[in-house]
């Protein structure tokens, strides 16, 4: 086999491996983690979110603030609610979103709030509530249950 043939063979193999790797990553679904989104809209039907059948589950939620409030709490009994907010070092003069113990402050309308909810392995179901923290009213609830999952969920 000539050097040129060998070089072309390597290129074709690398292209095949690259597309195979990308396809594999695209189809990859890892257990114990699911992403979904919930619109915080007053009066909307309760959402149903299905997480994996067993084991510790991390549910990554994008909560869209469509409730007409800038002060929003995420409550869920028996589960830990975290977020990648707030900024570690808030720049002076910038009204960044605050987050502490499940409560988001200064949330602009339409903003997507990143929330991570961790369900313990022995937790079968849970009820998540989105609350207007300014008056304590429930904006919307979501039932989180165990079952077969099929990827991204939008509510």
């Amino acid at each position, binding site marked *: 086999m000539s050097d040129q043939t060998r070089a072309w063979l390597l290129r074709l*193999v*690398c292209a095949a491996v690259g597309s195979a790797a*990308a396809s594999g990553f*695209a189809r990859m679904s890892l257990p114990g983690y699911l992403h979904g989104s919930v619109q915080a809209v007053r009066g909307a039907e309760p959402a149903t979110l299905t997480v994996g059948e067993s084991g510790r589950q991390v549910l990554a939620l994008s909560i869209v603030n469509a409730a007409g409030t800038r002060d929003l709490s995420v409550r869920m009994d028996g589960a830990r609610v975290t977020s990648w907010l707030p*900024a570690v070092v808030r720049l002076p003069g910038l009204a960044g979103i605050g987050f502490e113990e499940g409560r988001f402050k200064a949330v602009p309308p339409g903003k997507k709030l*990143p929330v991570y909810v961790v369900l313990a392995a022995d937790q079968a179901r849970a009820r998540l509530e989105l609350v207007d923290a300014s008056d304590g009213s429930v904006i919307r609830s979501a039932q989180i249950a165990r079952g077969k999952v099929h990827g991204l969920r939008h509510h």
Partner: protein
Amino acid sequence: MACAITERTERPFSSLRRWTIAAGMVLFLSPLALVPQLVGEVNMCGAVCPRLFMIIPSSGVLAGLRDKVAAEWFGASLVAVSLLVTFFLGRLWCGHLCPIGGASEYVSRLVPRRLRISFAFLAAPWFRYAYFAVFVAGVWLGIGAIGCKLCNYRIIPFLAGAPFVPGYRTYLLSSVGLAGLMTVVLTGFLADGGRAYCSLLCPVGALDGIVNALSAKLGWTAKTRTDPELCVGCGECVKACMVSALELDDECKSRRDQSSCMSCKECVKVCAHGAIRYGRS
């Protein structure tokens, strides 16, 4: 004819690039994350994401493009500016400012050489553009979405924020987070040169590489170029390159793959024969 290249010592790391990459890390990463905060984010997701808008949805190339670009407006703008700079001046974002590739490079230099993984055997452009094609068109073709999976623009900022914010730790310790972390470790921190993710998997780098390669054909664009008449085939540039963009050809002359070259200009500094210059040809 076999070209003899002596054993490599540690790759050069110019003081200019140390400072510009450090500046990029301060500007974009926690704890300060200055640029994300200015656009209403706290990391490189959301409006700062420079990748998701490239993905073609199942309904077609233009479907929802305006909404996607609007959602990731800063990231899309960053990519546009980066491509413009690349056209005229080379891949300055990748080689000098990107906090993600730069952080990987910094960490890789701390790893003992015997533990580093070399990806030099790969025909990188062929792997890179096959991967990029699936990244962009995977949803449209029904393959699926790579999206945020294994994204180093997520993993490295999350690592930077993890000591301070619990949410980052929640993600990094999840199955998806650990898979992403492993990818960044293998193709970044442990990679020889620290830039295998950049060279093989990064969609922004893939686009930049196309623009760099095409614009290098225009003599009036500033690029890092090798003059084969001055090259003596010592191989020092090959050893210095962190992305294996250089190799010695059959005549033992240095040859450059402009789609892989990150315009870091370390090769310019190591060439003792003036064969490599940055500028117009």
